[in-house]
Each structure stands twice: as C-alpha cells, then as structure tokens.
C-alpha cells in the first residue's frame, strides 16, 4: 500500500508536492513570550493592513492613553489604529513602510513611567451579540491577519449571502522556517484561542472548527487538546511538516481533502480560515472592547544575540528592536517574516506592524551568494515542488520572453501564490518566483488598463 501511494503520489493527510527546508525552530520554540520594552517614540503607520488607509482622529500635541483610538477605519476594507502606549502625539506625517513606499503615520512619544492599564471600550457580549455585531467588534479592535497577510479579518469572516460556512479552520501550521510565534501562542494562550473560536463560530455560522497544527508542534496540539472545553466543537488535527502547509489552500486540502477552485476563495468550499494568533487576539480583546496594541514576534536568525518570542508594541521602530536584542557585526540582511516569503528590508526606520510575525536576521554567512544562473536543465525539481501543480520551468522560459499574457492564459500564472518552493529547489538558480511576481503584476496592470479604457 505504501508503495502504491508512493507510485501514484497518493496522500490523504496532506497536500501534494511541497518542500522540506530545514526548520531552524529549535532556537526559539521553547522560549516563552516576553514583554518587550517600550520605545521612547512609537511610529504608527496608518497603512498596516491591505485596504484603505486609516484616518487619524487625533491632533499633534494631544495626550492619549494606552488603548485609545488614534485613527478610524478608512472604509469597509480597513481597520482602526489604537495607541500602544500612553503618551503625546508628536507628529502626523509620512513614514517609511516595509515596501519602501512612504505612508501616512502617527508619531507617539511615550510618557516616561506610563502604567500598563489599557482603556476599555464597549464589550462585545458573546451570548447576546449578533454575527454582524461580532464582525463590527472585530473591525473596531483593529484586527488583521496576524500570520503576515494583514488582511482585515472582519472582511474575511463575512460569509456572502449566497454562501455557507461549514467549517472554521484555524491555521496553527506556521510552516515558515525559523518562526515560532504561533507555536508559543498556542502553548500560552489556549484560553484566548477557545474564546476566539466561540466568537468566530458565531460570526461565521460554522457548526464546527478544526485547528491544523504541523507535527513539529505536537506539544501545542496536546496542550490544546488537554484543556479543550467539553462544549467547544473544536478538533485538533496534526498535519505533516511540509512547506507551504500553512497556506490557506494547502491547509484546506490537508485537513478536509477539498480543493479551493482556481481563482476562488476558501468560502467557495464552505471554509473560513483564520490564523490562530488572530483568533487568540479576538478572544482576548472582544470581551473588553479593546483594540490591538501589541503582537507576538519571533526575533531570530544567526545575526541576533537575544533570540526569542517577544510581545512588542505595534509601532516600535525596527531599529529600536534590533538595538535592544543586539545583533552581530556582520549582519547582512533583515527580513520581516520567514525566509521563504518574508521581505528583505533596507530601512531600519520602519515600524513593527500588525502583520509582522517575525524578524529574521542573516549574517553574510547565510545570505545566499550571487550564484551563477545556469539555463533550465528541465530537471523537474520545480514541477515536483509546486503545490499548485504549475510548471515553473515552462513559466520561467515564457517569463524570459516576456510572454506574460500567455503565462496567465494558458499556464495558470495567476494561481501562483509566490510560495517560493520552485526557486528553493532550482539547481540552476533561476529566480523563478521573482519572475512570476513581475509577470503577475504586469498582467494585473494590463487588465486594469483594459478596464479603464
């Protein structure tokens, strides 16, 4: 049977293809979450999420207390921003963001010895609130996907009228090497997660919830099982360690055996996927009507001296963070997120935002050297890695000829979610994902142009 499965690539407990990069989680996975110190000035970008910028409701010079609303949502696909610390608004001006663009932001100077109390708002009562009220509460709390996507969670939770949500799927996979934030959250914030699940079940109308956890976090799975309230319809599913197990589509396939249609969303197969840390945040904040002020970040990598999992106030400047934990002299690159999909930053004046799940620091030893790019030798490694079953080799050749439209029309370019598995495997060091990113944006641009005309 094993052989048959091997021959026909049949696996039922996981998606097919994918890769096995070294995990490197041992440095931080046993390190409990610690509170990070407050920076003298926090800088809060008003674009920390995907969607419209938040609108500032404070003025320069105003004194605010921790948890106070600083900016309101700038539309439906947008969320508010809250004060992570009590202090004085120094400036409202453009600030750099990770993408390199300047975005509007708020400079908040902390009071020297400010307390830890957080302002409370109107609680969202689990028993009496309607699904709409819960969604509103989630938006008011400023919650976005904490796994890194930073998409406003209330939008994701909204089940369209013609659709039905069967299963609430919690994502506790954390398949990116090095990162251990979700791992620690599951170990330390089980009660918040259970509470979050109750809110989310009610908001989506799902009858049951599943949490998918990669097998390298068995202790987290055991912990969540051991303390599971009897009345909570939550099932813990351990899935094999494989990248990109944590992508929504792959996790749906691994846990439910379903495939999200090309171009569609999880709700098309009756599923809503929420990151586990996001869930914990909902469970913690909604009963008190509070907004999100801090998040758990794994700070790790060979270039970091005090590695660990830290609870960092949103808006803390990256430079301050790195100075506090200490870095080696020969650091070369800093990534926000994991090594597979994280973004390299050149500017340390950017802030920790709601979507920052990890800070990874590589020294010049780990940074991949300028490697010689060979022609594609059709080795097929990329084909056997791509979880979407695309043909990256073929796409790469088309990209080289700038045949972007053909890539989209005949080779499912738009199904590529830039997981990087193909580039990771390629022995010829062809920058496949990079080419696909460019190709995708070209196709999108062309499409919106065609719409405009």
């Amino acid at each position, binding site marked *: 049977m094993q052989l048959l499965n091997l021959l026909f690539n049949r696996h039922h407990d996981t998606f097919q293809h994918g890769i096995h990069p070294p995990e490197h989680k041992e440095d931080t996975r046993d390190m409990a979450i610690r509170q990070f110190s407050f920076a003298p000035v926090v800088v809060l970008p008003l674009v920390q999420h995907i969607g419209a910028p938040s609108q500032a409701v404070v003025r320069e010079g105003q004194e605010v207390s921790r948890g106070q609303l600083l900016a309101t949502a700038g539309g439906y696909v947008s969320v508010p921003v809250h004060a992570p610390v009590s202090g004085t608004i120094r400036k409202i001006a453009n600030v750099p963001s990770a993408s390199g663009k300047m975005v509007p932001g708020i400079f908040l100077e902390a009071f020297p010895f400010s307390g830890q109390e957080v302002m409370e708002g109107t609680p969202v009562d689990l028993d009496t609130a309607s699904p709409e009220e819960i969604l509103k509460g989630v938006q008011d709390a400023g919650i976005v996907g904490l796994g890194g996507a930073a998409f406003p969670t209330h939008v994701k939770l909204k089940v369209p009228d013609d659709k039905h949500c069967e299963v609430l799927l919690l994502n506790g996979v954390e398949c990116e090497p090095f990162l251990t934030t979700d791992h620690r959250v599951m170990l330390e914030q089980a009660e918040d997660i259970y509470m979050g699940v109750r809110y989310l079940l009610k908001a989506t109308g799902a009858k049951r919830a599943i949490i998918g956890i990669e097998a390298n976090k068995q202790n987290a799975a055991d912990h969540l099982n051991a303390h599971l309230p009897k009345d909570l319809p939550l099932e813990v599913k351990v899935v094999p360690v494989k990248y990109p197990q944590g992508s929504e589509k792959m996790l749906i396939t691994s846990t439910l055996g379903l495939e999200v249609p090309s171009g569609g969303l999880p709700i098309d197969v009756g599923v809503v996927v929420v990151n586990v840390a996001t869930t914990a945040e909902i469970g913690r904040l909604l009963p008190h009507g509070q907004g999100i002020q801090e998040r758990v970040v794994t700070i790790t990598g060979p270039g970091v001296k005090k590695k660990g999992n830290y609870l960092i106030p949103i808006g803390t400047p990256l430079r301050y963070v790195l100075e506090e934990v200490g870095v080696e002299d020969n650091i070369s690159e800093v990534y926000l997120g994991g090594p597979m999909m*994280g*973004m390299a930053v050149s500017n340390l004046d950017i802030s920790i935002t709601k979507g920052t799940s990890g800070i*990874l620091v590589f020294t010049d030893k780990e940074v991949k050297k300028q490697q010689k790019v*060979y022609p594609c030798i059709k080795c097929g490694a990329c084909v056997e890695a791509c979880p979407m079953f695309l*043909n990256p080799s073929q796409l790469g050749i088309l990209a080289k000829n700038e045949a972007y439209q053909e890539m989209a029309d005949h080779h499912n370019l738009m199904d590529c979610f830039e997981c990087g598995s193909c580039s990771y495997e390629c*022995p010829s060091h062809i920058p496949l994902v990079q080419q696909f*990113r460019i190709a995708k944006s070209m196709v999108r641009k062309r499409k919106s142009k065609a719409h405009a005309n």
Partner: protein
Amino acid sequence: MLTKTLDISTSPHIQRGMSTEVIMRNVVYAIMPMVLFSIYAFGTAAFWVIFTALVSCLLTEYVLCKLSGKESSLSDWSAVITGLLLGLTLPPIFPLWMTFCGGVIAIALGKFVFGGLGMNVFNPALVGRAVLQAAFPVAITTWQEAFRPDRFTTIPTSLKAMPFMSPVFDGVSGATPLSAFKFDHITAPAAELAFGQVSGSAGETCAILIILGGLYLYARRMINWRIPVSILGTVFLFSGALYLLDATNYPSPVFMLLSGGLMLGAFFMATDMVGSPLNPKAIWVYGAFIGIMVVVVRIWGGLPEGVMYAILLANALAPQLDRIFKNRVYGTVKRKS
C-alpha cells in the same frame, strides 16, 4: 546606534543548495565505474575510444563557445557527460578518427545548434552515435570479445585507421549477445550479462555497474526514478508476455533486460533531464514508449538493437508529451490547454 547598511534580495532567502554543476559532476562520478570496467574488459582500445570521444566533445564545446562569443560552458560538466557516454556506446575497437567525428557531431549538432545546454531536444551523445551508425554501419557493428588476453598489449589496427580509409578489422569479431540471438538464436546466460562477460559497446556490458550508478544518482535525487522504472518495467512486461506465449522464438525477459544497451540507455541516456519530459504522467508514457520501441525493434526490426533510436524518438516526443499529459493544476477541474 545601528548604522549597518543592509542588502536586500527577493524571497526565498534560502535555497536547497543544489546546483546544476553539482548534478552534472555527480553524473560523471556515476559513469566512472563503467569507464573503468570497460577498460578492464576491453583493454587499451576502450581507453582510447572513450578518451578520444571525451577530448573531441570538450574541444568542440570550447571552440564553439569561443566562436559564438559565449562564456565557456565547459565548467558545467555537461560536455564531459556527453563525451563519456558517447565513448561508452561505441564498440571498443571503433576507429579513433570516426570517434572524433562523433564527438564533434554530438556537441555541434546535438547541442549547439539548439542553443546549448538546456535547449537541446535530443540526447547529444545519441545524436553523435546515430550519425556514426548511419555513416559507418560496418565499423559500428564490429565487436571484439571481452577479456582477450592480449587486450592490454596490442592495439587493434582498426583503431588506428586513417581518416576516410576503410578500417581493417583484425578478423576477430565477437558477436554481441543480441546479434547472436537475432541471427543465431543463442541467448547468453544472465550472469554473464550482469557481470559484463560478453562483448558489446564499451560501456554497456556490465549491467550491475550501470544499476549501481543509477541507484547512486537516485539516492542523491539526481535522476528521475520513473524513467528507468517505466522503461525496464515495460520491456519486462512486454517481452515477458511474448516469452510466455512462445518461449522458443522469443527471448526471456531477463535476457532482454540485461543485454545490449538497454541498461545504459534506461539509466543514463533516457534520464538526460533536458530531453525527457517534466510532468510525472508524461514521464511514464515516455518510458513506456521507449520500452515498447526497444522490444519491437529487437524482435521484429532489422537491427539487433533499438535502444538508441527508441530514446531519440522519445526525446523528440517529450515536449509534446509534456503538453498532453500536463499536471492538473490545483483547483481546476479539467486540464486547460
């Protein structure tokens, strides 16, 4: 204050650490035991044939890169593979000037006209050999038996034939097991085939070494296991079925597997990444096609051996197979063309 300037690069920031150069170099490692065995079995003559093929391929690659103003691609080791494989597919007493021509053709016609490594349609070594077979049908089917006592002391005169002169063969032509079967219905014992006690092309005779080389590459994830499995499986099933029908006229499947260039072809020629398809389903079809062709040519065709033509034909079909037997893209119902 942290003042370090940081580099930026695009994700992913880690890689498996495999490189094309390493893969090619390991293929060379896997081929080396066969080279040594062939020199051991066929003597100095085999050395000169393989050496000439190698030099001619490297030289051609070098000159063509120079002429076309490209950076030399010698460092990717692919020309070494082509040279060694070409040498191994030739009879060990093949005239050296012909061998040299074969190398030039393999690289120039087999690889360069297509645009170099990665762009070639056919396995370059087989292109070289196919042209030699067409041009010199006698020389390429004249064999020497293995383990001649004088194999290290004398050099066969045919080796030293002057260009464009018909070579003189020393009159010692050991029939290969396949031709013995084809024309005289004699099958060699499996053990002799497995351990290379028979005559044949320089590198094809010792099945065990070929399989070991293939396993080494498989263990290092450098060949696609589906290719040898599908080829050998098809040959075994197809010839096995014939053997069951009529054991007097058809050879046993074991003989079919171990004789001629099948092992060498299945593990080292058909697996050439550039010429084989990418999609798993296409690979199965590719292998099955080669397997069927080999049996058909060997049993019903006019030639004793069909591995070379089977692989070349399959190479030509590979892009088409990839197009037809595409992977089903995640989340799509039907194949989109």
